[in-house]
Protein backbone atom coordinates (compact mmCIF):
# COMPACT_ATOMS: atom_id res chain seq x y z
CA UNK A 1 0.00 0.00 0.00
CA UNK A 2 1.22 3.49 -0.77
CA UNK A 3 0.73 6.73 1.17
CA UNK A 4 -2.47 8.69 0.54
CA UNK A 5 -3.35 12.32 1.32
CA UNK A 6 -6.53 14.40 1.36
CA UNK A 7 -6.01 17.28 -1.07
CA UNK A 8 -9.46 18.81 -1.29
CA UNK A 9 -12.63 19.09 0.80
CA UNK A 10 -16.09 20.52 0.22
CA UNK A 11 -19.29 20.77 2.22
CA UNK A 12 -22.48 22.75 1.71
CA UNK A 13 -24.63 24.40 4.39
CA UNK A 14 -26.72 21.66 5.99
CA UNK A 15 -30.38 21.88 6.94
CA UNK A 16 -33.85 21.41 5.54
CA UNK A 17 -32.92 22.30 1.97
CA UNK A 18 -36.30 22.36 0.18
CA UNK A 19 -34.83 23.99 -2.92
CA UNK A 20 -32.07 21.43 -3.42
CA UNK A 21 -32.37 17.94 -4.93
CA UNK A 22 -30.31 14.85 -4.25
CA UNK A 23 -28.33 15.41 -7.45
CA UNK A 24 -27.78 19.10 -6.59
CA UNK A 25 -26.37 18.11 -3.22
CA UNK A 26 -23.91 15.61 -4.72
CA UNK A 27 -22.74 18.08 -7.36
CA UNK A 28 -22.47 21.01 -4.96
CA UNK A 29 -20.02 19.36 -2.57
CA UNK A 30 -18.16 17.59 -5.39
CA UNK A 31 -17.50 20.94 -7.10
CA UNK A 32 -16.46 22.59 -3.82
CA UNK A 33 -13.93 19.79 -3.26
CA UNK A 34 -12.56 20.02 -6.81
CA UNK A 35 -12.18 23.78 -6.47
CA UNK A 36 -10.52 23.37 -3.08
CA UNK A 37 -8.01 20.92 -4.57
CA UNK A 38 -7.52 23.07 -7.64
CA UNK A 39 -8.21 20.21 -10.05
CA UNK A 40 -11.04 19.50 -12.49
CA UNK A 41 -11.29 15.73 -12.65
CA UNK A 42 -10.89 12.52 -10.68
CA UNK A 43 -10.49 8.90 -11.75
CA UNK A 44 -13.38 7.48 -9.70
CA UNK A 45 -16.19 8.77 -7.50
CA UNK A 46 -17.37 6.85 -4.41
CA UNK A 47 -20.80 7.89 -3.17
CA UNK A 48 -21.82 7.08 0.39
CA UNK A 49 -25.59 7.14 0.74
CA UNK A 50 -27.83 5.13 3.02
CA UNK A 51 -31.21 5.18 1.36
CA UNK A 52 -31.78 7.46 -1.62
CA UNK A 53 -34.36 4.91 -2.78
CA UNK A 54 -36.58 5.23 0.28
CA UNK A 55 -35.98 8.97 0.76
CA UNK A 56 -36.22 10.14 -2.88
CA UNK A 57 -37.16 7.09 -5.02
CA UNK A 58 -33.77 7.43 -6.74
CA UNK A 59 -31.17 4.66 -6.92
CA UNK A 60 -28.26 4.31 -9.33
CA UNK A 61 -26.18 7.05 -7.73
CA UNK A 62 -23.20 5.46 -9.48
CA UNK A 63 -24.49 7.22 -12.59
CA UNK A 64 -26.28 10.31 -11.30
CA UNK A 65 -23.29 11.36 -9.17
CA UNK A 66 -20.68 11.56 -11.96
CA UNK A 67 -23.37 12.74 -14.42
CA UNK A 68 -24.43 15.86 -12.51
CA UNK A 69 -20.86 16.66 -11.46
CA UNK A 70 -20.06 16.71 -15.22
CA UNK A 71 -17.63 13.84 -14.80
CA UNK A 72 -18.92 11.14 -17.18
CA UNK A 73 -17.47 8.67 -18.08
CA UNK A 74 -15.73 8.60 -14.65
CA UNK A 75 -16.97 5.48 -12.82
CA UNK A 76 -19.20 5.89 -9.77
CA UNK A 77 -19.41 3.42 -6.90
CA UNK A 78 -22.30 3.57 -4.41
CA UNK A 79 -21.39 2.49 -0.88
CA UNK A 80 -23.94 1.67 1.83
CA UNK A 81 -23.49 0.83 5.49
CA UNK A 82 -26.44 2.74 6.98
CA UNK A 83 -25.21 5.84 8.86
CA UNK A 84 -21.60 4.70 8.28
CA UNK A 85 -22.01 4.92 4.49
CA UNK A 86 -19.95 8.11 4.29
CA UNK A 87 -17.06 6.78 6.36
CA UNK A 88 -17.09 3.63 4.29
CA UNK A 89 -17.10 5.60 1.02
CA UNK A 90 -14.00 7.42 2.27
CA UNK A 91 -12.35 4.13 3.27
CA UNK A 92 -13.18 2.60 -0.12
CA UNK A 93 -11.71 5.59 -1.96
CA UNK A 94 -8.63 5.39 0.28
CA UNK A 95 -8.15 1.71 -0.61
CA UNK A 96 -8.63 2.53 -4.30
CA UNK A 97 -5.77 5.05 -4.24
CA UNK A 98 -3.57 3.14 -1.77
CA UNK A 99 -3.76 0.07 -4.00
CA UNK A 100 -2.23 1.98 -6.88
CA UNK A 101 -5.27 1.52 -9.12
CA UNK A 102 -5.76 5.28 -9.40
CA UNK A 103 -4.01 8.46 -8.29
CA UNK A 104 -6.95 10.75 -7.58
CA UNK A 105 -10.35 9.55 -6.28
CA UNK A 106 -13.30 11.42 -4.77
CA UNK A 107 -15.53 10.30 -1.90
CA UNK A 108 -18.90 12.04 -1.65
CA UNK A 109 -21.43 11.49 1.11
CA UNK A 110 -25.03 12.53 0.63
CA UNK A 111 -28.52 12.18 2.05
CA UNK A 112 -31.67 14.00 0.98
CA UNK A 113 -34.07 13.29 3.84
CA UNK A 114 -36.81 15.92 3.69
CA UNK A 115 -38.53 14.84 0.47
CA UNK A 116 -40.42 12.44 2.74
CA UNK A 117 -42.31 13.45 5.90
CA UNK A 118 -41.16 12.64 9.43
CA UNK A 119 -42.81 9.20 9.37
CA UNK A 120 -41.15 8.43 6.04
CA UNK A 121 -37.75 9.48 7.33
CA UNK A 122 -38.22 7.41 10.50
CA UNK A 123 -39.20 4.40 8.39
CA UNK A 124 -36.15 4.80 6.15
CA UNK A 125 -33.76 5.19 9.07
CA UNK A 126 -35.26 2.16 10.85
CA UNK A 127 -34.15 -0.07 7.97
CA UNK A 128 -30.67 0.14 9.55
CA UNK A 129 -31.98 -2.07 12.38
CA UNK A 130 -33.20 -5.68 12.21
CA UNK A 131 -36.59 -5.43 10.48
CA UNK A 132 -37.96 -8.78 11.73
CA UNK A 133 -36.74 -8.83 15.34
CA UNK A 134 -36.36 -5.16 16.28
CA UNK A 135 -38.44 -2.86 14.07
CA UNK A 136 -41.34 -5.37 13.85
CA UNK A 137 -41.77 -5.08 17.61
CA UNK A 138 -42.09 -1.30 17.60
CA UNK A 139 -38.59 -0.15 18.46
CA UNK A 140 -37.10 3.04 16.99
CA UNK A 141 -33.50 4.25 16.80
CA UNK A 142 -33.97 6.66 19.70
CA UNK A 143 -35.45 3.65 21.51
CA UNK A 144 -32.41 1.43 20.85
CA UNK A 145 -30.01 4.12 22.08
CA UNK A 146 -32.29 4.78 25.05
CA UNK A 147 -31.97 1.13 26.04
CA UNK A 148 -28.17 1.48 25.83
CA UNK A 149 -28.43 4.65 27.94
CA UNK A 150 -30.55 2.95 30.64
CA UNK A 151 -28.10 0.03 30.69
CA UNK A 152 -25.09 2.39 30.92
CA UNK A 153 -26.75 4.44 33.68
CA UNK A 154 -27.60 1.28 35.65
CA UNK A 155 -24.14 -0.27 35.20
CA UNK A 156 -21.94 2.78 35.72
CA UNK A 157 -24.10 5.42 37.37
CA UNK A 158 -24.07 7.73 34.35
CA UNK A 159 -26.52 10.58 35.02
CA UNK A 160 -29.22 12.35 33.02
CA UNK A 161 -27.25 15.63 33.38
CA UNK A 162 -24.08 14.02 32.00
CA UNK A 163 -25.98 12.88 28.90
CA UNK A 164 -27.36 16.39 28.46
CA UNK A 165 -23.86 17.85 28.73
CA UNK A 166 -22.94 16.15 25.43
CA UNK A 167 -25.70 18.11 23.68
CA UNK A 168 -24.78 21.34 25.49
CA UNK A 169 -21.13 21.01 24.41
CA UNK A 170 -21.85 20.06 20.80
CA UNK A 171 -24.42 22.80 20.31
CA UNK A 172 -21.94 25.31 21.73
CA UNK A 173 -19.44 24.22 19.06
CA UNK A 174 -22.02 23.99 16.28
CA UNK A 175 -23.29 27.51 17.02
CA UNK A 176 -19.92 28.72 15.72
CA UNK A 177 -20.00 26.56 12.57
CA UNK A 178 -21.58 28.45 9.64
CA UNK A 179 -22.40 25.14 7.89
CA UNK A 180 -24.28 23.64 10.86
CA UNK A 181 -28.04 23.01 10.76
CA UNK A 182 -28.86 24.12 14.31
CA UNK A 183 -26.63 27.03 15.25
CA UNK A 184 -28.05 27.58 18.69
CA UNK A 185 -26.77 26.87 22.17
CA UNK A 186 -28.83 24.79 24.59
CA UNK A 187 -28.75 24.39 28.38
CA UNK A 188 -28.87 21.21 30.45
CA UNK A 189 -32.39 22.12 31.60
CA UNK A 190 -33.57 22.68 28.03
CA UNK A 191 -32.24 19.26 27.00
CA UNK A 192 -33.81 17.49 30.00
CA UNK A 193 -37.16 19.24 29.67
CA UNK A 194 -37.56 18.92 25.90
CA UNK A 195 -40.16 16.57 24.40
CA UNK A 196 -39.45 12.98 25.44
CA UNK A 197 -38.80 10.72 22.44
CA UNK A 198 -37.89 7.47 24.22
CA UNK A 199 -37.10 7.47 27.94
CA UNK A 200 -34.61 8.85 28.96
CA UNK A 201 -33.73 10.62 25.68
CA UNK A 202 -35.50 13.83 24.65
CA UNK A 203 -35.59 15.44 21.22
CA UNK A 204 -32.48 17.46 22.22
CA UNK A 205 -30.55 14.22 22.89
CA UNK A 206 -31.19 13.19 19.27
CA UNK A 207 -29.47 14.23 16.06
CA UNK A 208 -31.86 15.85 13.58
CA UNK A 209 -33.17 14.93 10.11
CA UNK A 210 -31.00 16.78 7.62
CA UNK A 211 -30.35 17.32 3.93
CA UNK A 212 -26.68 17.66 3.12
CA UNK A 213 -23.56 16.43 1.44
CA UNK A 214 -19.79 16.52 1.80
CA UNK A 215 -16.91 15.55 -0.47
CA UNK A 216 -13.20 14.90 -0.16
CA UNK A 217 -10.51 14.17 -2.73
CA UNK A 218 -7.86 11.58 -2.00
CA UNK A 219 -4.56 11.52 -3.83
CA UNK A 220 -1.40 9.45 -3.83
CA UNK A 221 1.22 11.20 -1.69
CA UNK A 222 3.70 11.64 -4.55
CA UNK A 223 1.16 13.33 -6.73
CA UNK A 224 -0.27 15.33 -3.80
CA UNK A 225 3.11 16.96 -3.27
CA UNK A 226 3.02 18.17 -6.89
CA UNK A 227 -0.57 19.40 -6.74
CA UNK A 228 -0.89 21.18 -3.40
CA UNK A 229 1.20 23.80 -1.65
CA UNK A 230 -0.84 23.59 1.54
CA UNK A 231 -0.20 21.42 4.59
CA UNK A 232 -0.60 17.81 3.50
CA UNK A 233 -3.16 15.76 5.38
CA UNK A 234 -2.08 12.13 5.33
CA UNK A 235 -4.45 9.23 5.99
CA UNK A 236 -2.33 7.30 8.49
CA UNK A 237 -4.91 4.78 9.71
CA UNK A 238 -8.12 3.15 8.53
CA UNK A 239 -10.21 0.51 10.32
CA UNK A 240 -13.60 -1.11 9.79
CA UNK A 241 -15.55 -3.75 11.70
CA UNK A 242 -19.05 -5.20 11.97
CA UNK A 243 -21.18 -6.48 14.84
CA UNK A 244 -24.56 -8.23 15.15
CA UNK A 245 -27.40 -6.30 13.54
CA UNK A 246 -29.50 -6.86 16.68
CA UNK A 247 -28.51 -4.91 19.77
CA UNK A 248 -29.92 -7.74 21.94
CA UNK A 249 -27.35 -10.20 20.60
CA UNK A 250 -24.27 -8.24 21.75
CA UNK A 251 -22.25 -9.44 24.73
CA UNK A 252 -22.35 -6.05 26.45
CA UNK A 253 -25.32 -3.79 25.76
CA UNK A 254 -23.43 -0.65 26.71
CA UNK A 255 -20.17 -1.22 24.85
CA UNK A 256 -19.57 -0.62 21.13
CA UNK A 257 -17.30 -3.51 20.18
CA UNK A 258 -17.22 -2.73 16.44
CA UNK A 259 -15.90 0.75 17.23
CA UNK A 260 -13.21 -0.69 19.50
CA UNK A 261 -12.07 -3.14 16.82
CA UNK A 262 -12.12 -0.55 14.00
CA UNK A 263 -10.06 1.81 16.19
CA UNK A 264 -7.53 -0.91 17.02
CA UNK A 265 -7.03 -1.58 13.29
CA UNK A 266 -6.64 2.12 12.47
CA UNK A 267 -4.20 2.73 15.33
CA UNK A 268 -2.14 -0.35 14.36
CA UNK A 269 -1.91 0.86 10.77
CA UNK A 270 -0.89 4.32 12.00
CA UNK A 271 1.60 2.90 14.49
CA UNK A 272 0.08 5.20 17.11
CA UNK A 273 -1.61 5.01 20.51
CA UNK A 274 -5.00 6.58 21.17
CA UNK A 275 -3.30 9.13 23.46
CA UNK A 276 -1.43 10.48 20.41
CA UNK A 277 -4.73 11.74 18.97
CA UNK A 278 -5.21 15.51 19.44
CA UNK A 279 -8.92 15.83 18.59
CA UNK A 280 -11.86 13.76 17.35
CA UNK A 281 -15.03 13.84 15.32
CA UNK A 282 -17.30 11.05 16.57
CA UNK A 283 -20.75 9.69 15.79
CA UNK A 284 -22.97 11.43 18.37
CA UNK A 285 -26.27 10.39 16.76
CA UNK A 286 -27.59 10.46 20.34
CA UNK A 287 -25.94 11.94 23.43
CA UNK A 288 -25.30 8.49 24.94
CA UNK A 289 -23.56 7.46 21.71
CA UNK A 290 -20.74 10.00 22.12
CA UNK A 291 -20.09 8.74 25.65
CA UNK A 292 -20.04 5.10 24.55
CA UNK A 293 -17.90 5.82 21.47
CA UNK A 294 -15.22 7.58 23.53
CA UNK A 295 -15.15 4.59 25.87
CA UNK A 296 -14.91 2.12 22.95
CA UNK A 297 -12.10 4.11 21.31
CA UNK A 298 -10.15 3.86 24.56
CA UNK A 299 -10.02 7.64 25.13
CA UNK A 300 -11.88 7.20 28.42
CA UNK A 301 -12.25 4.10 30.63
CA UNK A 302 -15.62 2.28 30.37
CA UNK A 303 -18.12 4.04 32.61
CA UNK A 304 -16.13 7.29 32.82
CA UNK A 305 -17.53 8.90 29.65
CA UNK A 306 -20.28 10.76 31.49
CA UNK A 307 -18.16 12.27 34.31
CA UNK A 308 -15.34 13.17 31.88
CA UNK A 309 -17.79 15.02 29.64
CA UNK A 310 -19.24 16.88 32.63
CA UNK A 311 -15.69 17.82 33.71
CA UNK A 312 -15.00 19.46 30.33
CA UNK A 313 -12.43 16.98 29.00
CA UNK A 314 -14.09 16.94 25.57
CA UNK A 315 -14.98 20.64 25.30
CA UNK A 316 -13.43 22.80 22.57
CA UNK A 317 -10.93 24.16 25.12
CA UNK A 318 -10.58 20.84 26.95
CA UNK A 319 -7.67 18.42 26.82
CA UNK A 320 -9.37 16.28 24.18
CA UNK A 321 -11.74 18.31 21.97
CA UNK A 322 -14.55 16.14 20.56
CA UNK A 323 -16.89 17.30 17.78
CA UNK A 324 -15.57 20.82 17.31
CA UNK A 325 -17.84 20.90 14.24
CA UNK A 326 -20.94 20.61 16.42
CA UNK A 327 -21.17 16.89 15.78
CA UNK A 328 -24.22 15.16 14.35
CA UNK A 329 -26.20 16.76 17.15
CA UNK A 330 -25.87 20.39 16.04
CA UNK A 331 -24.26 20.24 12.60
CA UNK A 332 -26.96 17.81 11.44
CA UNK A 333 -27.02 14.18 10.34
CA UNK A 334 -27.71 13.59 6.65
CA UNK A 335 -26.85 9.97 7.31
CA UNK A 336 -24.77 9.10 4.23
CA UNK A 337 -22.91 12.43 4.35
CA UNK A 338 -21.89 12.36 8.00
CA UNK A 339 -18.77 10.18 7.69
CA UNK A 340 -17.36 12.27 4.84
CA UNK A 341 -18.15 15.51 6.67
CA UNK A 342 -16.09 14.27 9.63
CA UNK A 343 -13.08 14.01 7.29
CA UNK A 344 -13.84 17.50 5.93
CA UNK A 345 -13.78 18.89 9.47
CA UNK A 346 -10.58 17.10 10.48
CA UNK A 347 -8.84 18.25 7.31
CA UNK A 348 -9.96 21.85 7.91
CA UNK A 349 -8.70 21.76 11.50
CA UNK A 350 -5.33 20.28 10.48
CA UNK A 351 -4.94 22.89 7.71
CA UNK A 352 -6.00 25.65 10.17
CA UNK A 353 -8.96 26.47 7.89
CA UNK A 354 -11.65 26.13 10.56
CA UNK A 355 -13.35 29.33 11.74
CA UNK A 356 -11.15 31.14 14.24
CA UNK A 357 -13.52 30.85 17.21
CA UNK A 358 -13.86 27.08 16.93
CA UNK A 359 -10.30 26.03 16.20
CA UNK A 360 -8.89 23.26 18.36
CA UNK A 361 -5.66 24.18 20.13
CA UNK A 362 -3.53 21.35 18.76
CA UNK A 363 -4.53 19.85 15.43
CA UNK A 364 -1.80 17.55 14.17
CA UNK A 365 -3.56 14.21 14.51
CA UNK A 366 -7.35 13.85 14.24
CA UNK A 367 -9.57 10.76 14.48
CA UNK A 368 -12.95 10.26 12.79
CA UNK A 369 -15.40 7.58 13.99
CA UNK A 370 -18.57 6.84 12.01
CA UNK A 371 -21.04 4.05 12.78
CA UNK A 372 -24.09 2.36 11.32
CA UNK A 373 -27.28 1.42 13.13
CA UNK A 374 -26.94 0.73 16.83
CA UNK A 375 -23.19 0.19 16.36
CA UNK A 376 -23.53 -2.79 14.00
CA UNK A 377 -20.83 -1.34 11.74
CA UNK A 378 -18.05 1.13 12.52
CA UNK A 379 -15.42 2.93 10.50
CA UNK A 380 -12.44 4.76 12.04
CA UNK A 381 -9.88 6.96 10.30
CA UNK A 382 -6.81 8.77 11.60
CA UNK A 383 -5.40 11.74 9.72
CA UNK A 384 -2.13 13.55 10.35
CA UNK A 385 -0.83 16.88 9.13
CA UNK A 386 2.68 16.59 7.70
Amino acid at each position, binding site marked *: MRDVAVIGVGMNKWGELWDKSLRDLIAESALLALDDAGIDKVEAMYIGCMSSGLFTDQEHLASIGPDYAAMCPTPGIRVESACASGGLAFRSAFIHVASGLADIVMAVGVEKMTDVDG*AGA*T*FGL*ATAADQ*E*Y*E*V*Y*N*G*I*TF*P*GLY*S*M*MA*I*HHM*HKYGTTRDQLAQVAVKNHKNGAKNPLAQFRMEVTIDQVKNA*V*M*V*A*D*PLTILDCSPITDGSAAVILCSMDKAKEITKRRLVKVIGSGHASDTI*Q*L*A*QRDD*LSFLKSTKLAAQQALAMAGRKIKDVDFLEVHDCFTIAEIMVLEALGCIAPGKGGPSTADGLTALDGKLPVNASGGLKSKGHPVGATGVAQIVEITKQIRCDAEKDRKVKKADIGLAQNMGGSGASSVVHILEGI
Partner: protein
Amino acid sequence: MSSPRYWREMPQRYRYEAAKCKKCGKVLFPPRLICPGCRARDFEKVHINQTGEIETYTVIRVAPAPFVDQAPYPVAIVNMGDGVRILCQLADIEPEEIKIGLPVRIEFRKIQKQGESGLLLYGYKCVPEF
Protein backbone atom coordinates in the same frame (compact mmCIF):
# COMPACT_ATOMS: atom_id res chain seq x y z
CA MET B 1 -45.98 -6.59 4.66
CA SER B 2 -46.00 -9.35 2.06
CA SER B 3 -47.54 -12.68 3.04
CA PRO B 4 -44.35 -14.72 2.43
CA ARG B 5 -42.30 -12.36 4.58
CA TYR B 6 -44.79 -12.65 7.44
CA TRP B 7 -45.20 -16.41 7.00
CA ARG B 8 -41.43 -17.09 7.09
CA GLU B 9 -41.08 -15.75 10.64
CA MET B 10 -44.18 -17.46 12.09
CA PRO B 11 -42.28 -20.34 13.77
CA GLN B 12 -40.37 -17.78 15.83
CA ARG B 13 -43.20 -15.29 16.42
CA TYR B 14 -45.94 -17.85 17.18
CA ARG B 15 -44.04 -20.75 18.73
CA TYR B 16 -40.73 -19.17 19.82
CA GLU B 17 -38.77 -21.79 17.89
CA ALA B 18 -34.99 -21.65 18.16
CA ALA B 19 -32.05 -23.74 16.95
CA LYS B 20 -29.65 -25.47 19.36
CA CYS B 21 -26.17 -26.12 17.99
CA LYS B 22 -25.43 -29.85 18.12
CA LYS B 23 -21.73 -29.15 18.59
CA CYS B 24 -21.42 -26.37 21.18
CA GLY B 25 -24.97 -26.25 22.56
CA LYS B 26 -25.50 -22.55 21.82
CA VAL B 27 -29.19 -21.64 21.36
CA LEU B 28 -29.88 -19.34 18.41
CA PHE B 29 -33.02 -17.20 18.26
CA PRO B 30 -33.83 -16.70 15.48
CA PRO B 31 -32.22 -19.81 13.93
CA ARG B 32 -29.30 -19.34 11.54
CA LEU B 33 -27.55 -21.53 8.98
CA ILE B 34 -24.23 -21.44 10.83
CA CYS B 35 -23.44 -21.18 14.54
CA PRO B 36 -21.66 -17.88 15.32
CA GLY B 37 -20.12 -19.59 18.36
CA CYS B 38 -18.38 -22.60 16.75
CA ARG B 39 -19.27 -22.40 13.03
CA ALA B 40 -21.02 -25.80 13.09
CA ARG B 41 -24.04 -26.25 10.81
CA ASP B 42 -26.09 -28.95 12.53
CA PHE B 43 -28.92 -27.89 14.82
CA GLU B 44 -31.87 -29.35 16.69
CA LYS B 45 -35.16 -27.51 16.99
CA VAL B 46 -35.85 -26.23 20.52
CA HIS B 47 -38.08 -23.60 22.10
CA ILE B 48 -36.76 -20.64 24.04
CA ASN B 49 -37.62 -20.46 27.74
CA GLN B 50 -40.98 -18.92 28.63
CA THR B 51 -39.61 -16.68 31.37
CA GLY B 52 -36.76 -14.21 31.62
CA GLU B 53 -35.45 -11.02 33.22
CA ILE B 54 -35.41 -7.46 31.93
CA GLU B 55 -31.84 -6.36 31.07
CA THR B 56 -32.70 -2.90 29.81
CA TYR B 57 -35.80 -1.02 28.64
CA THR B 58 -37.24 2.22 27.33
CA VAL B 59 -40.65 3.79 26.83
CA ILE B 60 -41.38 4.77 23.22
CA ARG B 61 -43.16 8.17 23.21
CA VAL B 62 -42.65 9.05 19.52
CA ALA B 63 -43.77 5.92 17.69
CA PRO B 64 -43.42 4.68 14.11
CA ALA B 65 -46.59 4.88 11.99
CA PRO B 66 -47.98 1.35 12.71
CA PHE B 67 -47.60 1.89 16.47
CA VAL B 68 -48.86 5.46 16.90
CA ASP B 69 -52.14 4.31 18.48
CA GLN B 70 -50.25 2.32 21.13
CA ALA B 71 -47.83 5.07 22.29
CA PRO B 72 -46.51 5.45 24.88
CA TYR B 73 -45.47 1.81 25.18
CA PRO B 74 -42.50 0.11 26.87
CA VAL B 75 -39.94 -1.99 25.00
CA ALA B 76 -37.30 -4.14 26.70
CA ILE B 77 -34.39 -6.42 26.02
CA VAL B 78 -35.16 -9.57 27.99
CA ASN B 79 -32.66 -12.26 28.94
CA MET B 80 -34.51 -15.57 28.42
CA GLY B 81 -31.63 -17.73 29.68
CA ASP B 82 -29.49 -20.18 27.64
CA GLY B 83 -27.72 -17.15 26.12
CA VAL B 84 -30.91 -15.93 24.39
CA ARG B 85 -31.93 -12.29 24.57
CA ILE B 86 -35.01 -10.93 22.82
CA LEU B 87 -36.27 -7.44 22.14
CA CYS B 88 -40.02 -7.08 22.63
CA GLN B 89 -42.74 -4.86 23.99
CA LEU B 90 -43.78 -5.14 27.63
CA ALA B 91 -47.52 -5.43 28.29
CA ASP B 92 -49.77 -5.20 31.37
CA ILE B 93 -47.26 -3.01 33.21
CA GLU B 94 -46.99 0.70 33.99
CA PRO B 95 -43.78 2.47 32.94
CA GLU B 96 -42.89 3.30 36.56
CA GLU B 97 -43.08 -0.40 37.52
CA ILE B 98 -40.38 -1.42 35.03
CA LYS B 99 -36.91 -2.05 36.36
CA ILE B 100 -33.78 -3.94 35.38
CA GLY B 101 -33.91 -7.50 36.77
CA LEU B 102 -37.73 -7.70 36.79
CA PRO B 103 -38.94 -11.27 36.03
CA VAL B 104 -41.22 -11.47 32.99
CA ARG B 105 -43.05 -14.13 30.97
CA ILE B 106 -43.42 -14.31 27.18
CA GLU B 107 -46.97 -14.21 25.78
CA PHE B 108 -48.55 -14.40 22.33
CA ARG B 109 -50.03 -11.00 21.46
CA LYS B 110 -51.14 -8.72 18.67
CA ILE B 111 -48.14 -6.60 17.65
CA GLN B 112 -49.37 -4.18 15.02
CA LYS B 113 -52.18 -3.32 12.66
CA GLN B 114 -50.94 -2.63 9.17
CA GLY B 115 -52.35 -0.17 6.69
CA GLU B 116 -55.89 1.08 6.11
CA SER B 117 -57.21 -2.47 5.73
CA GLY B 118 -56.14 -3.22 9.28
CA LEU B 119 -54.17 -6.40 8.63
CA LEU B 120 -53.30 -7.79 12.06
CA LEU B 121 -49.74 -8.96 12.76
CA TYR B 122 -48.99 -11.15 15.76
CA GLY B 123 -45.95 -12.10 17.81
CA TYR B 124 -44.63 -12.07 21.36
CA LYS B 125 -44.61 -9.55 24.18
CA CYS B 126 -43.47 -9.96 27.77
CA VAL B 127 -45.67 -9.44 30.84
CA PRO B 128 -44.63 -9.22 34.50
CA GLU B 129 -44.21 -12.63 36.18
CA PHE B 130 -45.50 -12.37 39.74
